[in-house]
């Protein structure tokens, strides 16, 4: 485990994508501020300086890379576990890996990979809202932070260390084929909800049955049960 910290960087994910050759498995890169923080499909992830935890983890171990679907949700679940230890309630995982509290988003995760015929590395970018109080009103899903939920400030350095330790511990369990499914399904945010999903390029209203044991999402669309992979759908609630 290697830790790197920047005061300011364009994006911790972009840094690891460009430099993964030089760093070992489970290198953590954090930053006080990201000038081009990235969300899914180039959506911006903005955060006040030194208020939140912004980091990326580099995964190069072959066995872990092959379990990227599991790692994706386990990453969200690990953040959820730490938030629970800090006293937050009503936590859930919005498939495939976002962490919600009281129907508000507190953590976003973006996975990126570099492949040359096969995946060479996996980069897990994580943003957790920690001490930020106010958020821009442009979000479609309300954001929140630990501070807003608990009405107190959190020691960011200690929180970072708790998150890193939890991730390393849980990733070790993934490597040993530990099955997290029975724990994860208890926190399924979308279960029994009706959502619009873009299935095969057609927007359809689907009823979510829940997260499956292979971490795909079971839904009912036009009276048929289908299992969705995140890459093949996009959501609107």
């Amino acid at each position, binding site marked *: 485990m290697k830790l790197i910290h920047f005061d300011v960087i364009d994006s911790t994910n972009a840094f690891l994508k460009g430099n993964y050759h030089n760093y070992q498995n489970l290198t953590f890169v954090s930053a006080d501020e990201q000038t081009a923080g990235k969300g*899914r499909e180039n959506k911006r992830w903005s955060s006040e300086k030194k208020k939140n935890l912004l980091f990326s983890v580099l995964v190069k171990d072959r066995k872990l890379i092959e379990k990227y679907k599991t790692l994706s949700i386990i990453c969200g679940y690990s953040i959820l576990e730490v938030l629970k230890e800090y006293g937050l309630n009503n936590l859930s995982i919005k498939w495939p890996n976002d962490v919600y509290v009281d129907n508000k988003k507190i953590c976003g*995760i973006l996975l*990126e990979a570099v492949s040359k015929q*096969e*995946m060479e590395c996996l980069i897990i970018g994580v943003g957790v809202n920690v001490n930020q109080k106010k958020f821009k009103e442009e979000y479609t899903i309300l954001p929140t932070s630990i501070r807003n939920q608990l009405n107190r400030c959190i020691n960011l350095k200690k929180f970072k260390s708790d998150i890193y330790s939890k991730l390393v511990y849980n990733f070790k369990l993934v490597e040993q084929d530990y099955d997290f499914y029975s724990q994860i399904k208890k926190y399924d945010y979308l279960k029994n909800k009706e959502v619009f999903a873009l299935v095969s390029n057609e927007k359809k209203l689907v009823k979510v049955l829940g997260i499956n044991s292979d971490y795909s999402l079971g839904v009912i669309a036009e009276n048929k049960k289908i299992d969705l992979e*995140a890459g093949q759908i996009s959501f609107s609630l």
Partner: protein
Amino acid sequence: MLEGLVKMKIYKIKVNGKYYEVEVSAVDEVVAEIKAETKKVENVVSQGDNVILAPIAGKVLEVKVNVGDMVKKGQTVAIIEAMKLENEIQSAFAGQVSAINIKKGDDVKNKDELIVLK
């Protein structure tokens, strides 16, 4: 085999002041049908071509090259998304793009042939 009515015609030709009689045979128009062998040619990969494969199943978010482009080893040629994972597809070879089998929005399977370099 050509089949037709053969007609003979005699022509007088003047060469260097001298006349020569030349017998020329004329052939009626013959309709011949040539059937070309039709074979569906798809994703032809010749020996020596390098094929960039999909490392995972997913949806094509972006194709970053065009046919005819020169590609360096390690250059990003496409981005594929699966399970909220954006996968930067880099070329393991240098060469010129001779075929692109994907477009934005396509679903691809693991090991699908995405781009061919020559």
